[in-house]
């Protein structure tokens, strides 16, 4: 007996597989959840095959978000595994990596298992947990990394917080080499941030808000590069936002130090001017910086200094954001808007379409040391179908996340995922 649902023929799409330099119109056959065949024309062998007409659409490897805050367990009023994966599916992501700053923190096997069980039951896309670097992400004692990896964690991070103690960070990097997993750091010097709220510059001065200096990020980027050089561990730098950081990473890569870096769509789309008149939905860490910083982030994306694009999807309830700006929590959602904002990079002359897709699929997989993010024959079928031309406006109807804290509400977008295939299972938007 053949499983009807698992046989899908995607016909006539522009198949883009950056890792294999494929970019051409053709057909793709999925059988039993596996990519069976890719060729210029495939005729369905029998009537059991579900045919998806993809003419005019892009057929890409399933997008992978290396940086999602799922909020479950502990903050289910902001987001759940069910709602985050629904948002991911709608945004074109077939895998999301969930940061450990839940309650309790994902610093042990039980929390990892809970996340994976929930994801298996309620998740629409794959959920890859990231374990904590230190116990309760307090930055003091290392969490049991071996146990976390055995339970299914793909990386470690104390995201939301930096590991301020450089000795602890050095030891974490050294220890992570046992498991060959990346250590992901949220680069922020908390002493320099002080009580800062938005980027320290003209806008913070105009609004009388405490600023977060650019050096809060770059000081830690420099430290992490020094520690990566010393330990030889794989270090991944999250949500890079400033010119100074891009310069440091570019230089480190030139010297062969094993660092990778991500940025987020808001850093290459907005500047601190988006804070406008105290808009709490433009408040996140690191903060939106200046035009010069944005220009350097774009240059970093173009020359490969910045390896990939991640969302830093950080849901917060409406009443949490409806406060005085300095009391409102940091963070914005991003799963539903990341793809169209990244596609804008093509029109802005920063990246080609295959490069955009690569930074949203193959590169995050590469950071994790996984051979996914490609359209390989015999691989599990994780695929994203993209309509490049659909124009739409970001509103609540297009936000599947439980939280709506986005600075892009009301913004005109072009292009979106029309469907994803996760392990051979089709989810249409």
């Amino acid at each position, binding site marked *: 007996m053949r499983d009807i649902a698992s046989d899908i023929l995607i016909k006539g799409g522009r198949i883009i597989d950056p890792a294999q330099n494929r970019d051409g119109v053709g057909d793709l056959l999925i059988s039993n959840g596996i990519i069976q065949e890719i060729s210029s024309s495939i005729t369905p062998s029998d009537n059991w095959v579900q045919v998806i007409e993809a003419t005019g659409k892009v057929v890409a490897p399933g997008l992978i978000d290396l940086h999602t805050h799922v909020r479950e367990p502990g903050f289910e009023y902001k987001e759940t595994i069910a709602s985050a994966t629904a948002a991911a599916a709608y945004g074109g992501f077939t895998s999301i990596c969930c940061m450990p700053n839940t309650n309790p923190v994902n610093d042990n096997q039980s929390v990892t298992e809970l996340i994976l069980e929930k994801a298996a039951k309620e998740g629409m896309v794959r959920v890859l947990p990231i374990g904590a670097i230190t116990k309760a992400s307090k930055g003091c004692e290392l969490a049991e990394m071996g146990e976390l990896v055995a339970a299914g964690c793909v990386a470690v991070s104390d995201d939301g917080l930096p590991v301020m103690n450089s000795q602890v960070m050095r030891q974490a990097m050294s220890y992570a080499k046992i498991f060959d997993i990346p250590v992901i750091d949220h680069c922020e010097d908390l002493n320099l941030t002080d009580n800062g709220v938005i980027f320290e510059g003209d806008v913070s*001065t105009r609004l009388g808000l405490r600023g977060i200096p650019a050096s809060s990020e770059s000081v830690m980027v420099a430290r992490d590069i020094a520690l990566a050089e010393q330990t030889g561990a794989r270090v991944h730098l999250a949500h890079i936002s400033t010119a100074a950081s891009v310069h440091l990473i570019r230089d480190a890569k030139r010297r062969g130090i094993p660092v990778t870096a991500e940025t987020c769509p808001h850093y290459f789309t907005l500047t601190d001017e988006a804070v406008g008149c105290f808009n709490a939905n433009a408040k996140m860490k690191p903060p939106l910086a200046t035009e010069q910083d944005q220009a350097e982030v774009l240059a970093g994306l173009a020359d490969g200094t910045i390896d990939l694009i991640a969302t830093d999807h950080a849901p917060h309830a409406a009443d949490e954001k409806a*406060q005085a700006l300095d009391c409102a929590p940091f963070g914005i959602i991003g799963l539903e808007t990341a793809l169209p904002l990244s596609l804008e990079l093509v029109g802005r002359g920063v990246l080609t379409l295959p490069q955009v897709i690569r930074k949203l699929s193959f590169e995050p997989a590469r950071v994790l040391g996984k051979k996914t993010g490609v359209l390989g024959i015999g691989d599990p079928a994780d695929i994203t179908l993209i309509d490049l031309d659909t124009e739409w406006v970001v509103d609540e109807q297009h936000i599947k996340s439980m939280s709506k804290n986005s600075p892009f509400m009301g913004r005109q977008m072009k292009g979106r995922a029309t469907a994803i295939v996760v392990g051979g299972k089709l989810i249409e938007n």
Partner: protein
Amino acid sequence: MQLKRKDILGIAELDREEIDLILQTAESFKEVSSRAIKKVPALRGKTLINLFFEPSTRTRTSFELAGKRLSADVINISSSSSSTLKGETLLDTTRNIQAMHSDFIVIRHASSGVPHFLARSVESAVINAGDGANEHPSQALLDLLTIKENKGRVKGLKVVIIGDILHGRVAHSDIHVLKKYGADVHLVAPPTLIPTGIERWGVQIHYHLDQALAGADVIILLRLQLERQGSSYFPTLREYAELYGLNARRLALADSEALVMHPGPINRGVEVSSDVADGLSSVILQQVSNGVAVRMALLFLLSGGKHA
């Protein structure tokens, strides 16, 4: 002529025509405060709520008197008595006040932008009585009135503002208003208390007080929050007073007719010595009197009142 707006949130968005109107109206209200019966019926039946989330005596009393002299009913809500201590959110507090149909809400809050948040959520006229390090518009208006009364003009005057510019909402609003009227504005503070990029507001920055004071027409002192001592802003009050305190020797460097102003309350011996605070150049108490008149003008104009 009438004001074009529902709220007074900051000086930055006011134009000169509006500021002139407020000052003219304030001048006509000064006379009310000198009468034996200090009351006119302009705002009878109107309700003013003073919503103060930060301790304040001067500004709150000034708004209260302004409201009462115009016959409005005035209610004071301070942070110690407010429901925020019971965990009520700002939005809920706001909605409750709105439900009580207040005509004016005067708000002071430690966070920048709270009056703007309030103004977006309520129909009442909102007056910013100081938000974080952002603005304190009524203070700047009374400072402007005081300068105009004493100097007859603002354009071309050398105004030196001394002290904590970084946390200073008074400095922010004063700079905006003084620049709008063409003053030559100088800021003096340690670099740790000067906000990034403020030189782009068209002001000159000094780290040395003596140099800045030469030929000054107006000296505006800012109140130093004493808890800044021991943080990384400056080492001790002693050293701060030594480097940035105004005393008789330094005052002599300014123009002989220079005015000394301070929004209060004064830290005697820190930002200013007692002989200067109480001396002939000081117009500090005149500022207080003008404060009531300016706030009467704001309430009157926001209620739709027209200045003849």
